[in-house]
């Protein structure tokens, strides 16, 4: 349980909790996410976002990187990523690097 709901902002540094596993399913030829009593099938773009959630890159940085990869406008990509990560965070599938959140909140 979390003491409070997390709001994902461009400054957040998201990561997958240790028990949320992103893999590639060779048999089915698709990315797969395994979590407590749950299996999810992220599409190619969602999987690309998740792979960049390493706890050190911020959402803004992830958006910039994906904007380059997919040659798409960064604002649009960032909006999509924020919505996607908010949804995953609400299902406790994404954490944010809290140290960072605290220091940002103070500054």
């Amino acid at each position, binding site marked *: *349980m*979390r*003491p*409070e*709901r*997390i709001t994902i902002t461009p400054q957040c540094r998201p990561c997958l*909790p*240790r*028990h949320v*596993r992103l*893999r590639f*399913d060779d*048999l*089915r030829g698709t990315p*797969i996410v*395994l*979590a*407590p*009593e749950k*299996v999810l099938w992220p599409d190619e773009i969602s999987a690309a976002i998740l792979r960049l959630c390493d706890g050190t890159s911020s959402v803004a940085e992830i958006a910039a990187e994906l904007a380059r990869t997919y040659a798409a406008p960064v604002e649009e990509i960032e909006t999509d990523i924020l919505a996607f990560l908010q949804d995953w*965070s*609400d*299902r*406790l599938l994404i954490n944010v690097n809290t140290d960072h959140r605290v220091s940002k909140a103070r500054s």
Partner: protein
Amino acid sequence: MTVQPPLGMLVELTHRCPLQCGYCSNPLDLMKADRELATSQWQTAFVEAADLGVRQVHLSGGEPTLRRDLEALVSCLSDHGVYTNLITAAVTLTRDRIATLREAGLEHIQVSFQGARRETTELVGRYRGAHEKKRAVAAWAREAGLPLTINAPIHRLNIGEVPNFVALALELDAERLEIANVQYYGWAYLNRAHLLPDYDSVMRQVDYVERVREDLVGRLNIDFVTPDYYADYPKPCMGGWAADAFVLTPDGMMLPCHAAQTIAGLDFDRVTERPLREIWEISDSFNRFRDTEWMPEPCRSCARKDVDFGGCRCQAFAITGDAAATDPSCIHSPLHGALRQMPEPGEIRHRAITRAVEKI
């Protein structure tokens, strides 16, 4: 028909359990330890399952921690890329064992609470000190870094404690709470006159859970298994017969659903006697109710047939005597009304296997 590979499996490692819940999902005819598969037999089956496509396992029972080889089984599964969930009543666990299971690759633990209050937990499970023990196990699991689910099987004796279960889950730092209304097959069917809550309590519970679940979004995941006795439509049992998951019993029988052996006239296979892939893909019992071709009316021409797959085959058989019939929990079933006719309540039947207790 094209058969998709299975994604999940529920493994009932043993029927032994120190608790005696009157709604246990094990069959009425509980088997003793001498019929359980050996470590190497389980491992062979697990490797075959992973090769076939299984990616998640629910290690259950009875009480799975009574198997002394649980660590070896967890590590075999984890080595083959299978995500392991342990489903336990927890009274047999120690702090050290949780740590070794974690090292073996266990990803998640689900601890059942028979009540949110000490007295209820003891009354329902018939085990003294169970509540405190469960609380301690929950704390050790969190200390070991394991994500925790609190499983709350709901029936008449504890339906009033649903808000307390939410408080308990928050207090124990769970990430998931499963409010699972008891399914009335097997033991629960036998005891249904004692266990089935009344309509008003069920509706109050549904309102409450929907509200609190919304309030706790992003803090606690609440999964709600609704009570289908009072619903208009059945639940999509197992996501459809032999659609993407199967069950293994302690003696290695492979089933499309944990109660499938209650259906007379279906023959099942053991994974020790036939390749697991063959059972999944071509066995008669798995193909009998796969997809929608087998459906009679009213399901056959119903728009919901790909939503609920005609409901539960075992419930259909238990109530109508015909496993292919429309699940009586559906409003279109001619027997929908009969579903709520209760027998006279007698003594509650607590599950027991004679030798279970000395084994702990």
